[in-house]
């Protein structure tokens, strides 16, 4: 086996880092109607968002985005009908959305997610929070909050398994 071995902190530690970084968005004197909406991207992002939502306990329910219908490679990879459809808990007009995903790589997932969000309404702001940023963007999208930045070889792949337990694994494909 070759390829670099990457030391990855535990998922719990990274989620805790994100939670602490996101807490300032939920000051205790903020009216429930003004609070941000936490939205997780299917599937890994949603698992992380669930944990963060449990820790922060905001007024609104957790949102769920399944971006399958918005992927730019839809005609190549097709549908995955087993994943559940998107649902946002409330009207998002004028709200802050905290968008959560597990790995930020090409940036295409986030582009698709934002396209989908704007079909639900016009949020005032979208904050992007990411567990792992592995770089190598293909479009100009950057996260606002990143728990961990790592570099991987081009052919390797980082994946969040879950939901119980949540675990990050790095696989090297091209070897």
């Amino acid at each position: 086996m070759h390829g670099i071995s990457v030391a990855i902190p535990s998922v719990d530690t990274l989620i805790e880092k994100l939670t602490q970084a996101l807490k300032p968005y939920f000051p205790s004197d903020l009216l429930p109607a003004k609070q941000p909406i936490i939205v997780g991207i299917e599937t890994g992002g949603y698992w992380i968002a669930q944990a963060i939502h449990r820790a922060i306990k905001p007024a609104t329910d957790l949102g769920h985005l399944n971006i399958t219908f918005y992927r730019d490679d839809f005609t190549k990879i097709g549908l995955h009908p087993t994943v559940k459809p998107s649902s946002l808990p409330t009207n998002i007009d004028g709200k802050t959305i905290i968008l959560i995903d597990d790995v930020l790589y090409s940036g295409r997932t986030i582009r698709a997610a934002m396209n989908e969000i704007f079909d639900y309404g016009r949020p005032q702001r979208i904050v992007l929070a990411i567990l792992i940023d592995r770089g190598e963007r293909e479009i100009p999208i950057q996260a606002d909050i990143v728990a961990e930045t790592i570099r991987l070889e081009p052919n390797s792949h980082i994946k969040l398994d879950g939901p119980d337990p949540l675990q990050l694994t790095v696989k090297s494909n091209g070897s």
Partner: protein
Amino acid sequence: MAANIQLDENGRLRHFLSIEGLNREIITEILDTAESFTSVTDRIIKKVPILRGKTVANLFFEASTRTRSTFELAEQRLSADILSLNVDTSATVKGESLLDTIRNLEAMQIDMFVIRHKDSGSAHFFAQHVRPGVSVLNAGDGQHEHPTQAMLDMYTIRHHKQDFTRLRVAIVGDIMHSRVARSQIHALNILNTAEVRVIAPKTLLPIDTESLGVQLYDNIEQGLRDVDVVIMLRLQKERMRGAFLPSEKEYFNLFGLTQERLNRARPDAIVMHPGPANRGVEIESSVMDGSQSVILQQVGFGISVRMAVMSMIVGQSSRGLSSRGQSSLQGSA
């Protein structure tokens, strides 16, 4: 119908022509996919970009309101550009002129055809002659099949009853002339429905019904006993001229669905009808509007099911929207 040209070499949908020849896996996938589209309707912008940049032509050689409008809405909700043509059948002679129609429309760079035609097999004919990469959906061909209608009926049944293997389903009416019934029977059998009954006057039963794997009843009171689902078919008035039936009134007396008759089914039985319904001919008005009727729900489900079929066809075509020049998209995050 001949070889299953609706599937590609990997067994995935390429066209959607008939329920016959599909397996349970694909039918279940259509139902699951349709379910994921229902949420699109709840949003401010009721659109997803799956068919963006694609052109769909709806060719209706035969009148239709419900099927055509739900196909159009499904296409629009998938962001397709659409073209709807009512083609005057009287001017069309089957064969060469149908081919001419295909060629002319192909010259307009149509990606997908939705076709309804009075001749059985017309959708297959179309599918055999379109260019590679162009798909055909059957919106009803003669007395052969109406597969998207059957799929929305299966969706409705699953929505209310979940497990097909425990269900008794009765289809009542003009089975012989009904492409809907034919598609439904295939779909119910593929989904392993416990019992499928057809209830009709003997003159309106096709000869080969028994080979379709159904129980025959020519008495509605007996046929409805303990069923979970009642599917009424439209009495096709245009066929009434023959010796099939004495009169509409007598048909209602013998086979019309009244509340009294419906009470022989299970108390939680649902009543379905593909439309358009003839009130007072095959179904009593109060049953049609009653609490067991899911007839209007069927119409709404028709949009999601048609979105599902079209997106599965596009999602599987490696030819579609090609030349993106993008590598390593799999798993891009």
